[in-house]
C-alpha cells in the first residue's frame, strides 16, 4: 500500500513536470476543450498545453492561456485555435509561435520572443497571415457561410 502511494506521488510529480508543456490554461469559462491528436480533453484552469494542441470553445466558452515566453492568448466563444508551432529558448529568448485561428475570435499580448525578434509570432487565418511586432491585438474569423 505504501509503495503504491509513493508510486502515485511520483507519477503526480512527473505529470506536473512535463517538459513538453508550452503553456497553461489560466482562465476557462463554459465549454472549453483541447483536441490533442485523436483525443479531446476538457480544459480547466491548470490544464497544460502542448505544441499541436487545438483549443475549441463552445457558444458559452472562452479560455485564457499563458505561454512560457509570457505571451497571453485568449480565445472567445465558438472558436477553433490551433497551436501549429511553438518553441521558446529561455536563455536566448529566441523562438517561434505559429497559431492558426480557424474560426472565432482571439485576443493576444505578445511576449518575450517578439521583443527579442519581431515577427517570430504569427497568426494564420484561412484568408491571411499576420506577423506580430507587438504587443496587443485582436483577430476575428467569420464562420464560412454555408451555401
Amino acid at each position, binding site marked *: 500500500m505504501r509503495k503504491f502511494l509513493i508510486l502515485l506521488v511520483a507519477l503526480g510529480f512527473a505529470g*506536473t513536470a512535463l517538459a513538453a508543456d508550452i503553456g*497553461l490554461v*489560466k*482562465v476557462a*469559462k463554459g465549454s472549453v476543450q483541447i483536441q490533442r491528436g485523436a483525443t479531446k480533453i476538457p480544459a480547466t*484552469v*491548470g490544464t497544460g498545453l502542448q505544441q499541436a494542441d487545438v483549443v475549441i470553445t463552445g457558444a458559452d466558452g*472562452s*479560455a*485564457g*492561456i*499563458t505561454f512560457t515566453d*509570457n505571451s*497571453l492568448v*485568449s*480565445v*472567445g*466563444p465558438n472558436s477553433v485555435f490551433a497551436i501549429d508551432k511553438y518553441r521558446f529558448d529561455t536563455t536566448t529568448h529566441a523562438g517561434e509561435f505559429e497559431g492558426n485561428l480557424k474560426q472565432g*475570435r*482571439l*485576443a493576444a*499580448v*505578445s*511576449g518575450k520572443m517578439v521583443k527579442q525578434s*519581431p*515577427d517570430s509570432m504569427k*497568426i494564420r*487565418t*484561412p*484568408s*491571411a*497571415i*499576420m*506577423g*506580430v*511586432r*507587438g*504587443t*496587443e*491585438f*485582436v*483577430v*476575428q*474569423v*467569420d464562420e*464560412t*457561410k454555408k451555401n
Partner: protein
Amino acid sequence: MVRHLWVIAAAFIAAGCSCAPVTPALFAVVPAADGHIGRIVVTANGGEPRLIDTKYGAERISADGKVEKVTLSEDEIKSTFGPTMEALPGRPASYTLYFLEGKDELTPESKIELDKVFADLRHRPLPDIAVIGHTDTRGGLEYNDNLSRARAERMREMLVGLGIPAERIQVAGRGKRELLVPTEDNVSEPRNRRVEINVR
C-alpha cells in the same frame, strides 16, 4: 482551346480576381494597459504585407476578397471582442523587495510593499511565481550565493504563509552575479540586497 483558357485566366488575374469567395477576417491593434500602440503586419493570401500601427487600426478582409484598412471605434472592438478580451489572463508582473544587510529579513519599507505584491498574487487563479535572490558585493562568492538563496527561500516561506501554494513558487539565488547597481567588489549597496518576484 488551351489558348482560350489562358486568356480567361489572364483576364481574372488582371481584374485583381476575387473569383473564389474567401473567409472574412479582421485583424486589429488595440492599445496596451499603458497606452502603448503595437504593430502588426497582415498579408492577405496572394497579397502584399501591410503594416497596421494605429490605435484600433485594422485590416478587414471581406467575403468577396476585398481587403481594406479601417479604423474601428472602441465600442466596435468591445462589442465584438468583449468576452474574448475578458478571458485574457493577468499581465506578467515583476516586483523587487529589499533586505537588511547580511540578513534574510526585509527592510521595513519592503515589508509594507509585500502587501501590494500579495494583493496582486491573490487575484491570479494559478500563479507561476519565480523568486530570485540577490546580494551586494560584500563578502565572498559562496557566502553571497548562500545568502541570496536564503533570501529567496525566506520570501517563499512568506508567500506560502500568506496562502500561496508552495508548488507554484520556484526559487533561485544569483549571489552577487547580477547587481542592480554596478559596484566594485566588497561594497555595501542597499539596492543590490534584494529579491525579484516574477509572476505570470
